[in-house]
């Protein structure tokens, strides 16, 4: 579905050359929920923007459904960390959600339907007529998610979407993403710096190294499909997985490509 091959991004400017991403290769299957986790400053956002066609990679290629990505592809939606800046304050919630749909060839009634459906999915039907700045942070991010849903993407890219909301809201939003993913069968690529979040959400976790970034490890999360904040987070398997990812991140920070580095899709042994 989504194929990232040999991706490299070097920023050049004012005499400084920063190699943000060195060589990244991974694949996301259709309908999969993959979490990308890595130490802070490891180029996660750069990677996601390259995947979303917002940045042009220096080398390597991103292909979506066998088509190379050279600009924002139609079947992709992006949810940004900075919901307050990503939603337009001059538009009401429903208008914000409808705007991207106007670029598609849809009738007005179909657009209305999609907006109403997306708002219902995130539980914000009553907020349609409000301005984003009249809502709390968590609600604003739900509006941003609703905007992405209404766009009916094949692939949803989420760039640390819950980094700026409080812990309780974050837990609710995580469950929302899990539910939407299961209901709608979208492919989701979710970037986070939070190890617990990555393990809780993902079907697979891709651990990135420190900058210049390569894939440190890919890990299958063999937790049951039904997850909830109360039980999943105290399950022994959850603890094992998060410990494993944590060790990998620590290794990545030290920059020692440990022998533990595996590029397989197998979960670590119990």
């Amino acid at each position, binding site marked *: 579905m989504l194929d990232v091959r040999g991706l490299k991004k070097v920023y050049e400017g004012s005499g400084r050359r920063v190699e943000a991403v060195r060589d990244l290769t991974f694949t996301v299957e259709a309908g999969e929920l993959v979490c990308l986790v890595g130490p802070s400053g490891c180029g996660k956002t750069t990677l996601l923007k390259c995947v979303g066609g917002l940045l042009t990679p220096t080398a390597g290629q991103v292909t979506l459904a066998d088509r190379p990505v050279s600009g924002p592809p139609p079947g992709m939606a992006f949810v940004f960390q900075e919901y307050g*800046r990503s939603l*337009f304050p001059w538009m009401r919630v429903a208008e914000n959600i409808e705007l*991207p749909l106007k670029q598609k060839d849809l009738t007005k009634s179909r657009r209305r339907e999609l907006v109403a459906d997306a708002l219902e999915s995130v539980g914000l039907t009553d907020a349609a007529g409000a301005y984003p700045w009249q809502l709390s942070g968590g609600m604003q991010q739900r509006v941003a998610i609703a905007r992405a849903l209404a766009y009916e993407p094949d692939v949803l890219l989420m760039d640390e979407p819950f980094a700026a909301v409080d812990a309780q809201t974050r837990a609710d939003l995580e469950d929302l993403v899990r539910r939407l993913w299961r209901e709608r069968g979208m492919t989701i690529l979710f970037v986070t710096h939070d190890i617990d979040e990555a393990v809780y959400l993902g079907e697979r976790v891709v651990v990135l190294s420190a900058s210049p970034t390569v894939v440190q490890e890919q890990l299958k999360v063999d937790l049951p499909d039904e997850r909830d904040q109360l039980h999943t987070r105290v399950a022994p398997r959850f603890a094992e997985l998060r410990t494993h990812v944590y060790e990998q991140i620590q290794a990545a920070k030290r920059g020692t490509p440990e022998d533990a580095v595996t590029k397989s899709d197998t979960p670590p042994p119990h």
Partner: protein
Amino acid sequence: MRGTNAALGAAGLAAFLALGEAVPRLGLVKEAYFPPTSRIASALGDELADGGFWSALGDTLTGWAIGLAIAVGAGVVVGVLVSIVPYLREATASTIEFLRPIPSVALIPLAVLLYGTELKSVLLLVVYASFWQVLIQTLYGVQDVDPVAEETARSYGLGTWARVRHVLWPTALPYVMTGVRLAAAVALILAITAELVIGAPGLGQEIAVAQTSQAVPEMYALIVVAGLLGLLINVGARAVERRALAWHQSVRGEVAV
């Protein structure tokens, strides 16, 4: 609190008017040059009853409105174009910085040469003066576009025109509104200056005529009218601004979340 402020404002104005009445009556200044408030008021009453005054007022407002409309239209279009066409801003920056400080009144001889005392003369000066106010504010406004908002629009496949309309324009609007408010005030100043100096029909010309015919109270009455006009224009511009920018943090105030 609001009531107190209004009362204080009214008291201040009353005191000012009383002072204007008292100073000439006490002989501190010559009544011939500075008539007391009551005589200016009665001259104003006479003017209001005179058809010539209303047609002069109409002429001034026509020059002001047409000039302002041209300046705002041109300022916004040029500002947006200069900002979104690559390299154009860098290429035009020095020219703008050179042309902008030229006082509009320095163009009076040119205006007379080109158009005599026609309305076009007034328009030339009004447009030149107010255009820069709008242009500069538009240029600043366009620069203020949030990169996240821009990336959001791009990621959802919004083309150049859709991004100008839905992202760039609303972002620039608060700045443009400020530019329009400044331009509206400057346009009135230039309209009256042009009439006064060139002799194009309007309030300015009436002031000049009153002065040369020694009709001193009438002259002051017309000046008062010009002042009231400026006040009304500013109040009107602010009202428009508040309506158009109801979503902006400068207008919406604090919201309970």
